[in-house]
């Protein structure tokens, strides 16, 4: 009887924990662009999927590319997206509709730094609908993450406790139900339905916060593994895989000339072996495109929205003339 009571109590406690976590998820996890992205890849058909890091997120406007090429696209890049994330994003998107092309935006720093817990992958995982891909993603990545990220999804947003009122309000609104991106617009940036983040020109010091320089010694084998997996997946599905590196400020490139040149050389050789087209826009003639630091939000190379629009035009021409 005593054991039964104890077991019963433990079960009640577990149910209580699950209930509290679910309520916390609802009231603490904010409405994010990941929700819209996941909705869009399930409900729309796209010719091109753009995957990669925050440089791609701020630098590629699929609408401009579509205007020039007639090929629709969606930007699936996010801050802290490693190749492992890109691979499962592509798989999830392709499970709804097979695209014609995948454009992988390559930031060399991501190939030489271990995956950390600071990216947005938790948001995307949380918003990803329950599917075979989600399960595979769980075993491939989430299992290695801090247990709190999985057991308590609200944990990454606990700094937003004071915004509970706003979060609850927006989650009960029509905007939320209709996946409206207007909610994310502020003085710094706005979120486009195509998945791109448009950075507004604002005054201020330009940072070098998350800058990781290329050093071949530090190359992470997992990046190669997942790139090769992505290549195999694309080949199997008849999808064309293209790799690009978006422009960075000329000042940054001059400051670390050798490292950028080494990275370019390494990837040219690597992608040639992989038989994948690689366009490094830092070593191409971009016509009148201005690569001065003034055109970027920071020294790392996140473009301002208008710069991104100009670059997307160049990207469109490159994809068209391939």
């Amino acid at each position, binding site marked *: 009887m005593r054991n039964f009571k104890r077991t019963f109590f433990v079960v009640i406690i577990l149910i209580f*924990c699950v209930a509290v976590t679910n309520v916390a998820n609802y009231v603490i996890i904010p409405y994010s662009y990941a929700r819209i992205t996941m909705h869009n890849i399930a409900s729309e058909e796209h010719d091109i999927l753009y995957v990669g890091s925050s440089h791609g997120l701020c630098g590629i406007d699929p609408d401009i590319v579509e205007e020039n090429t007639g090929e629709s696209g969606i930007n699936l890049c996010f801050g802290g997206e490693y190749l492992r994330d890109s691979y499962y994003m592509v798989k999830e998107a392709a499970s709804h509709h097979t695209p014609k092309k995948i454009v992988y935006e390559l930031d060399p720093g991501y190939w030489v730094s271990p995956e950390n*817990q600071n990216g947005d992958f938790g948001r995307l995982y949380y918003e990803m609908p329950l599917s075979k891909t989600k399960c595979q993603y769980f075993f491939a990545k989430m*299992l290695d993450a801090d247990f709190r990220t999985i057991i308590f999804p609200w944990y990454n947003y606990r*700094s937003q406790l004071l915004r509970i009122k706003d979060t609850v309000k927006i989650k009960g609104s029509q905007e939320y139900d209709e996946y409206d991106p207007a909610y994310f617009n502020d003085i710094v940036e706005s979120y486009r339905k195509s998945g791109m983040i448009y950075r507004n020109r604002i005054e201020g010091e330009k940072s070098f916060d998350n800058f990781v320089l290329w050093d071949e010694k530090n190359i992470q084998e997992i990046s190669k593994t997942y790139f090769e997996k992505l290549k195999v997946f694309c080949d199997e599905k008849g999808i064309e895989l293209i790799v690009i590196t978006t422009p960075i400020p000329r000042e940054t490139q001059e400051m670390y000339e050798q490292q950028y040149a080494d990275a370019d050389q390494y990837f040219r050789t690597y992608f040639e072996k992989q038989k994948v087209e690689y366009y490094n826009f830092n070593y191409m003639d971009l016509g009148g495109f201005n690569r001065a630091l003034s055109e970027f939000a920071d020294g790392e190379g996140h473009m301002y929205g208008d710069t991104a629009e100009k670059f997307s035009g160049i990207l469109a021409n490159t994809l068209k003339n391939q």
Partner: protein
Amino acid sequence: MSLISLKFLIFVVIAVVGYYLIPKKYQWIWLLVFSYIYYISSGVKIVFFLVFSTAVTYMTGLLLQKSEEKESTLGKKKIKARKRKIITLALLLDFGMLGILKYTNFLLGSIGSVLGSSVPEFDFLLPLGISFYTFQSAGYVLDVYWGKCKPERNVFKFALFVSFFPQLMQGPIGRFETLAVQLYARHSFDGQRIERGVRRILWGYFKKLVIADNAAMFVNSIFGNVDQYSGLAIIGVLAYSAQLYGDFSGGIDVVSGIACLFGIDLDENFRRPYFATSITDFWHRWHITLGTWMKDYIFYPISLSKWMSRFGKKARKKLGKQIGRALPICIANIIVFLVVGIWHGAAWKFIVYGLYNGLVIGISGMLAPQFRQWKNALHINDKGKGWMVFQILRTFVLVNISWFFDMASNVPDALKMMRYAVTKFEISELFTAGIIPLGNNNPKYIMLVIATILFGCAVLFVVSVFQERGLTEAELYRKVPFALRCLCYVAILFILPVLGAVPVTSGGFIYAQF
């Protein structure tokens, strides 16, 4: 496999459930299999080093016993010489492997800087936990050599002793006589033991995630930008005190809790070290298993050696009875702590860290009679609480001085920080942009992080005071009803995500890099 990853928790749950479901006689095999799976998950190549260390020490144990059995036929002297050769070779192989992998580049770099030219470095793989299992294995062969324990004949059982997964990464350094018996014993499921294990794991996570990881944000910024945060040197070192203790003892609590789930009690590695009244006392309370290893396998062999006793006699003749008696102990202590420093890492700062501790202990030992005289002259009541508090604070300051060497990038930076600690203090630097990673420059957020660290330290302090007064957690929990205990565990479980920081280095534990 990080101790705070979901994979590790699932791995532990599967291991524990299976452990109690399979027939008891196979339990140790189950543990061995899981230990190797755990190790292989960090890389297949590094298993070679673990197997090598296991093979060398296993064979040495058997060879030593075989030699002993031949004592009647070959004679005591011959056997003694043979045993000495065997043990020397075994220790050379064990420590040689550790030395080559961990210290070659440091030596080459040092030679290069002396010669003023760059010496090429080797790209050696540093296997996880190598410092821990090498010391544990070396302790075993020395115990067999000295006849303190019988060698293990079953190679697989011995492999489990070297590789038992909870303690493989950051200790505690186990002794064969206490650990092996438990590893090979048959264990029945015991609910109370499981609860004790879970409780210890939660407490360990609290120390690591709430105290250490929050403190680490300040520590990394301050120690990483010495000149930029020169006014925060004192806060940096205090935060490091909290971080290191929370990180290391938290990690040990987690692994001890996991071992407890299997019915195994690991040796205690901490006993409220910041309540120590002297540096010697501190080392009896901090990383206890390393301290006792050093005492048994380095300090005693040196201080009781023939050459040291000859030296002691000469010193007594030339320097007087008091110094002559204390000097050999002082030298043995300096050697021990030099090794402790080298064990901590391949860098000059660690050597200085070790020497500093050795010198403080050695000199305090030599000056002990003078201290007694001064105390008497000043009529200090050394049984009083005031004196004890003074001693604790004095020791805490001395320990913090050593932390400068432990955490700073190099010796000049450590010295610079010490200088800043006494000449500069600028609290406003705490609110400088960038001191906390991930762009959280909001002063309210910084205050919240500070309040969290202080809250964590306060909880730790209260628990430590109870423990210091002799109240064991088992006694405390026995008085609390089961339902209330469960609610406490749930509360701690929810505190981890609410107050715990995002680990700066993906959940890495400081001592797991050793």
